């Protein structure tokens, strides 16, 4: 928190943090989490008792086999909506279809073939790993799953909307602060005036005030009161100015223009925590240019669509496509209802992500140099990105931060032919000079740091 007050722009952040704190949306979100947890805690045992076939087991299987990536309960996604399937088809039919729909179709079942053709010949996966009992458990789950409530979706949308900060709130807050400050000052003055008037009436009670002694003489201990006012002024100034100056210096050096901790709201609430953390998708799958280019590049939306054509998180939104995934579709003008094979539409609307890491224009930085040659992990600079729900700038990106790393990190010279000559020279130097060799890092270990190979020179990054 202390850190927060050291920067002018942080004042805004503090204000918005306060607003965030009382934010309705946050409360709703938390309430929602608790409500869901509570609902499950209460209903699960009841349901389990009720059903001979285990709906709970069915739910687990439904999730474990990613049924939700192609099906929703109440909505046609890639495959048909599943609610009421037990009314439309016999249990035997369902079991046969789910376990091996291809064989089933080939056996000549007219319903199976009609279904296949209705969905444009997109075959469902084969699930022979599921026993017939498993399939029936899933059917049981579908049967008992709660029907959607029309209102929940609206709440979610409203919540998303309130994410956007209303700037007028900030101003109102500031104006209120100002008004209170003025009221305080006025009150203090009124109190002083009253005091003086009282002193005139009762001089004994208010010692010194009526004699016209100054504030200093009245209020300070005698040692201080007797001091030369200039000397006293200097002492006070020093006491006040030194820490202030130190504070100012630190502020200027470490904070001005530094955006460490900057975590803006993005147009699509993409979660690195989910994708990189829980699902363990390799960073390079999306940031595919990181090994070839100076830019790691924000993935183009067709990369998202590799998964999100199928994965629509309908299971979390009661059969509706996730509103965030819908934003991808809107950007690409993609119609999820359209037949498979159809590509994207003609009215695209590119996503304007908010840039988090902003190096000044006079700095050249190359991702591939650091990732491929330097063999650094993404986390070295970007922090625990796999745990971030909302990405923030982890490192200061100041030059001192770069230099520190260039001084301390060893280069893998042994496995890179480019450094062969340097490696030989270092080996020779170590042989000859032993402990006095120049190839010891600041930590006392033998290494060749970028700094030893000209990595601190200006024109390595500035040109």
């Amino acid at each position, binding site marked *: 928190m202390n850190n927060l007050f050291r920067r*002018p*722009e942080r004042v*805004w952040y503090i204000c918005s943090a306060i607003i965030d704190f009382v934010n309705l949306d946050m409360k709703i979100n938390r309430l929602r989490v608790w409500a869901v947890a509570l609902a499950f805690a209460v209903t699960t045992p009841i349901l389990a008792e009720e059903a001979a076939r285990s709906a709970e087991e069915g739910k687990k299987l439904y999730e474990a086999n990613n049924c939700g990536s192609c099906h929703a309960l109440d909505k046609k996604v890639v495959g048909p909506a599943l609610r009421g399937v037990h009314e439309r088809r016999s249990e035997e039919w369902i079991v046969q279809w789910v376990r091996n729909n291809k064989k089933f179709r080939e056996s000549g079942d007219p319903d199976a073939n009609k279904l296949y053709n209705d969905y444009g010949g997109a075959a469902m996966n084969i699930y022979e790993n599921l026993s017939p009992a498993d399939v029936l458990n899933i059917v049981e789950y579908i049967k008992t799953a709660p029907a959607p409530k029309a209102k929940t979706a609206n709440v979610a949308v409203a919540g998303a909307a309130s994410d956007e900060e209303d700037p007028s709130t900030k101003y109102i807050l500031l104006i209120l602060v100002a008004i209170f400050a003025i009221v305080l000052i006025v009150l203090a003055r009124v109190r002083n005036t009253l005091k003086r008037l009282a002193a005139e009436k009762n001089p004994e009670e208010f010692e010194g005030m009526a004699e016209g002694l100054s504030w200093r003489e009245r209020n300070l201990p005698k040692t201080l009161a007797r001091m030369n006012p200039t000397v006293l002024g200097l002492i006070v100034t020093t006491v006040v100015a030194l820490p202030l100056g130190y504070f100012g210096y630190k502020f200027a050096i470490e904070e*001005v*223009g530094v*955006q460490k901790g900057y975590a*803006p709201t993005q147009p699509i609430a993409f979660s690195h925590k989910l994708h990189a953390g829980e699902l363990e998708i390799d960073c390079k799958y999306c940031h595919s*240019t990181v*090994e*070839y*280019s*100076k*830019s790691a*590049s*924000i*993935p*183009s*939306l*067709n*990369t998202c669509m590799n998964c999100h054509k199928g994965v629509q998180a309908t299971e979390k939104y009661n059969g509706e496509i996730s509103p965030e995934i819908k934003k991808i579709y809107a*950007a*690409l*003008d993609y119609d999820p209802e359209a037949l498979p094979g*159809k*590509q*994207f*539409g*003609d009215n*695209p609307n*590119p*996503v*304007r*992500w*908010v*840039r988090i890491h*902003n190096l*000044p*224009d*006079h700095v*050249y930085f*190359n991702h*591939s*140099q650091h990732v*491929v*040659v330097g063999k650094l992990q993404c986390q070295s600079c970007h922090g625990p990105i796999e745990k971030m729900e909302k990405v923030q700038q982890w490192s200061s990106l100041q030059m001192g931060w770069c230099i520190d790393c260039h001084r301390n990190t060893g280069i893998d010279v042994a496995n*890179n*032919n*480019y*450094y062969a*000559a*340097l490696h*030989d020279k270092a080996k020779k130097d170590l042989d000859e000079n032993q402990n006095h060799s120049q190839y010891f890092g600041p930590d006392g270990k033998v290494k060749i740091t970028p700094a030893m*190979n*000209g990595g601190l*020179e*200006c*024109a*390595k990054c*500035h*040109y």
Partner: protein
Amino acid sequence: MSNNIKYWKGEEELNRDPQFLADQKREFGEALPLDEALSDEGFELNSNRRDFLKYFGFSVTAVALASCYKTNVRHAVPYLVKPEDVTPGVANYYRSTCGGCSTGCGVEVKVREGRPIKLDGSKDSVLSQGGLCSTGQASILSLYDTERLANPLVKKSETEDWTTLDAEIKGKLAVMKATNKKIVLLSNSINSPSALRAISAFKEAYPNIEHKSYDAVSYNGILDAHANDFGKRAMPHYRFANAKAVVSFGADFLGTWVSPVEFQADYVKNRRPDAEGGMSVHVQFESTLSMTGTNADHRFPMKSSKELTYVATLYNYIAKAKGIAQIPVPNNAELAGNAIEKTAKILLKNMGKSLVVSSSNDVSTQRVINGINMLLDSYGNTMDIVNHSNQFVGSDNDVNETLKGLANGSIAGVIFYGTNPVFNHNKEWSAAIAKAKLSISFASTNDETAAVCQYVCPDNHFLESWSDSEPIKGLYHFTQPTISPVFNTRQAEESLLNWAGALPSVEKDPLSDKGILSQKFEASPYYLYLHAFWEENLGEGGYQKALELGFTDSKAMANTSEPMIASYSGNVAELASEISKAGNDDLELVVYQAVALKDGSQGNNPWLYEMPDPVSKVTWDNYVALPKSLAVKLGVDKDDTVNIEANGVKYENVPAFVQPGQANNTVSMAVGFGHTHAGKVGGSIEKGFAPVGFNAYNFMNSTRNGVVANVKITKGSGSYNLAQTQTHHSIEGRDLVRETTFGAWKENNKAGNEKAAPHVYTIWEKRDYRKDGSPNHLWGMAIDLNACTGCGSCIVSCSIENNVPVVGRDEIRLRREMHWMRIDRYYSFVNEKEGKTEEMTRENDIDAADAGDKGEYKHWENVEVIHQPMMCQHCGQAPCETVCPVIATSHSSEGLNMMTYNRCIGTKYCGNNCPYKVRRFNWFRYNDNDAFDFHFNNPLGKMVINPDVTVRTRGVMEKCSFCVQRIQEAKLKVKREGGDMKDVNVETACQRACPSNAIVFGDLHNPDSEISKLYKNERAFSVLDELNVQSSVKYMTKVRNNETI
């Protein structure tokens, strides 16, 4: 010997002009007028304490407030669907064909994130051989020109869409076809097989259409002479690589004539003293000092009107030696002493290895030249008429007839394709076009001709087009788009096919189901047209391969009806009557092309205006070049103007310029200037921007002849300060260039370079990184003064690569040009004494000569020239580094002198202390500044910025970085992919652009590198070695082959 020669850069230096002397004492032109600004009211320098407190308080508060800003939110917009072959941050290179002029060199286009940002010559193309001229390089900026038309124009109804325009034009064409009204399609030289096919399809649909072509600068003489002598109206393909003796009459073949990039590359192969078979001899006869003339071993001033007499005399000498009948030539004796006889001897000595060229547009002259080349066995050796050039095929007759026909109504419609005759042919066109029932222009801007046409159908820029060309018979170059059309433009061929109803249908677009994601230009109908044509001719997949290479050498494609052997049937004797009419001694005007702007078709390109002319070093203007004798006679001095009148055209107060080397009784003026409808940069009357210079095409009119007789010149009343860089950054009186003769070099390879490096006493050990065997790189550069022709291609290339701003005329006048490299051009006088060429060595020699020849100033007519490219020398012990108070300039362990803009506080001490004067100071912010309204001031123009190089701001120093971004990129590639740095060729932008391979760059710690070998060459010297700054640039002593006469 070299240090005896008196070198000088300009008259002001030679005459010790007081202004020049004053300038030399100050490092940077004029200081900012701070005192003046501060002495204004309210800004009194003698402020009191209260003022001080006021300013102090204000400043503190302002700084505090300014630092309390909320950082801008910046956005990143990724591709929706990333094209597979695009990697953000990594450049793609595509082979294509340059459209900067009709020559059509093969180029490599560097594309970053879909934006072409640099053009370089394709190394495999015969025409460019890796280099590219300044005009070609700069043509990339024409793509991002805000003056380009965003939509087609229907002038009458002011509508701007293709549907209306097509409907109207088709309607008019149909009516004119029905009534059989003649329409002329007037194009420039077209050698694209598919474009010609499109035109014939158009003609088929409308039989009333005729296709005619002409070139802004005409080669009609050469073409017609060959039609007469070989029965084939074609220009031979000149093979300078095979020529050991080159004689040129006025042809600036290294700068502007026909195919200068190819000619430079070929010519220079024989210009190094260690060339196989020895160094070639080059003799030049010309009026004005051309860039080619500055490179000649022997240069003789010639009155261009007398050229026919000269060439006929030369013919006679050769004919005499071969025992063939001579032709009668009048007043033989007058011609340049015995120069012609000597020239003939050189040529005869090099039978089959010699080449005589002339720029004359006179058919008779060209026929004599053909005769000479026939006698010298040039055809088949140094000239190829079988596989001839198609680069220029225009006809003067065609254009003159069209104008006449339009004026008298026999031609009812006209279509301009790549031509702008109102500007470059004749002013009468405006009135003639107004009479036409139908007038269409394909110009991409509303140029002089388009402005008077009814319809403008803007053509794509060549970087947006699909095309092909056949510049040399049997050699096909291909053009592929590297960007989707920036504006709503359409390729001209597509328009023609559309009107002809012959456009292939795009119903079956293989990419259409990809919706927005298809690369739209690939599916353009013209692409399908081209693709079908070439797949048919090159076999399946052949077109794809040819596109990758950029060209194909397909003899199978060649027109077999043409004879494979051309036979000479000319007869020079027929020309006797013509020869007797040759010119007189009256004053004449020679109109020439400037090296940067050439024919002026890129009239709105600031890079070309800002590039100093290779010879005169004048920027941003054309001028009347006067010989010294005439200047003295008229009393014209520096900054004076002249009034010039010829051929019914009169210009007043044209800047005058005394050009050393200008033949007496001639003046000259460059074409390409004086646009009235070019735009902000080049001048636009409708938009209120004054034309740059004067349009010299008007002097030629329909004669199409570069030599204009009956010129009247008087001193003008006005005065005009030309923005000329020749004596900026002068390093007076020091030994900067070294030269010798070929004979002396053969005896001693160190000739001219005898001056030993000074012995240096030092208490310091050699720095680690400079020691042999040290594991770092040590970058160095070598420049061959024999190969450098001074063309300035490197300057433009450097500016593009390094985001060097354009500063404009006024700033250059104040000596504030920003070019990181300059080419110093040194004149020296030569004296012909007892048949021996001798340099004038001392100033009093020159004074004596000035006084001695009674106003003829003969020695001013003939000067020798050395071009020396000069950029940061990356000194090992750099004087600039030691004086910087903030260590903004420092030394790297790879031998680079680094300049760190973000550290620089602008003291300019480094510039003061630099002995080479190569540092440039940013006096202003040159981007987003309305005072510098060039391409850095609009979003479109900024597309050309190299994203790997910082755009500098006001108040910092900058200079050549040895293209450190390219070094770093090359190193990184090796580090990433493995491999050996020794196999990687790092090329700086100047080196990459150089058509004559004069610049070599590389790692001095690699003993096998070309640069290491050049450093050991006996000709190598460092400029100002005596200062012991240990520069990283070596120059190769200039060797002149001027003893053979």
